[in-house]
């Protein structure tokens, strides 16, 4: 069956440092979505990637979809305390939806 992995589980950074989380699938994905969940809150949609090699940017956030459509990354440049939360990927593999286990980002002011 499909195996998925999101790494790292946690990352603690100094404000201003960069942050990256990765999602990997053993099978080809149709698309991937990224969500952010603030502590005590609910997941909120950030972006969806569909095309092989796609790169999208939202201010300090850069999202990439791998050429083989089996992996994706979310990169935050110069983190701020408002970036604190858990970042999840939602992988769609032939209409089977699986969330990654999440990367919890902590930012030291």
């Amino acid at each position, binding site marked *: 069956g499909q195996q998925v992995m999101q790494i790292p589980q946690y990352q603690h950074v100094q404000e201003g440092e960069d942050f990256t989380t990765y999602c990997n699938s053993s099978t080809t994905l149709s698309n991937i979505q990224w969500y952010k969940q603030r502590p005590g809150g609910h997941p*909120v949609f950030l972006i969806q990637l569909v095309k092989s090699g796609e790169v999208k940017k939202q201010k300090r956030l850069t999202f990439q979809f791998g050429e083989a459509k089996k992996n994706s990354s979310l990169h935050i440049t110069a983190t701020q305390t408002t970036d604190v939360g858990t970042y*999840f990927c*939602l992988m769609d593999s032939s*209409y089977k*939806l699986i*969330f990654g*286990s999440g990367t919890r980002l902590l930012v030291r002011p």
Partner: protein
Amino acid sequence: DAGITQSPRYKITETGRQVTLMCHQTWSHSYMFWYRQDLGHGLRLIYYSAAADITDKGEVPDGYVVSRSKTENFPLTLESATRSQTSVYFCASSGLGLTDTQYFGPGTRLTVL
């Protein structure tokens, strides 16, 4: 704009009791989903529904029952609650399809003693 709401927000129950968690959305979205979130497991799909009277199992459906008689409501029932069902439950909806953007409710924190 109410969006998507869940009730109750917090629930404590005992092993063996039946519990129903409610989910209501005002967008007339076709798809609705139930997830549970446990530490270290992220979000796991329990059931989803493509439309009224159409439901399908997700990754962890055992011990849960759903129904969808109206587009806007998607209740989740634990017929005989167990301690392993202690979790935070999120309902979500999407308008255009199974793989479209999902909008999440605030969650229900359920504790089974």
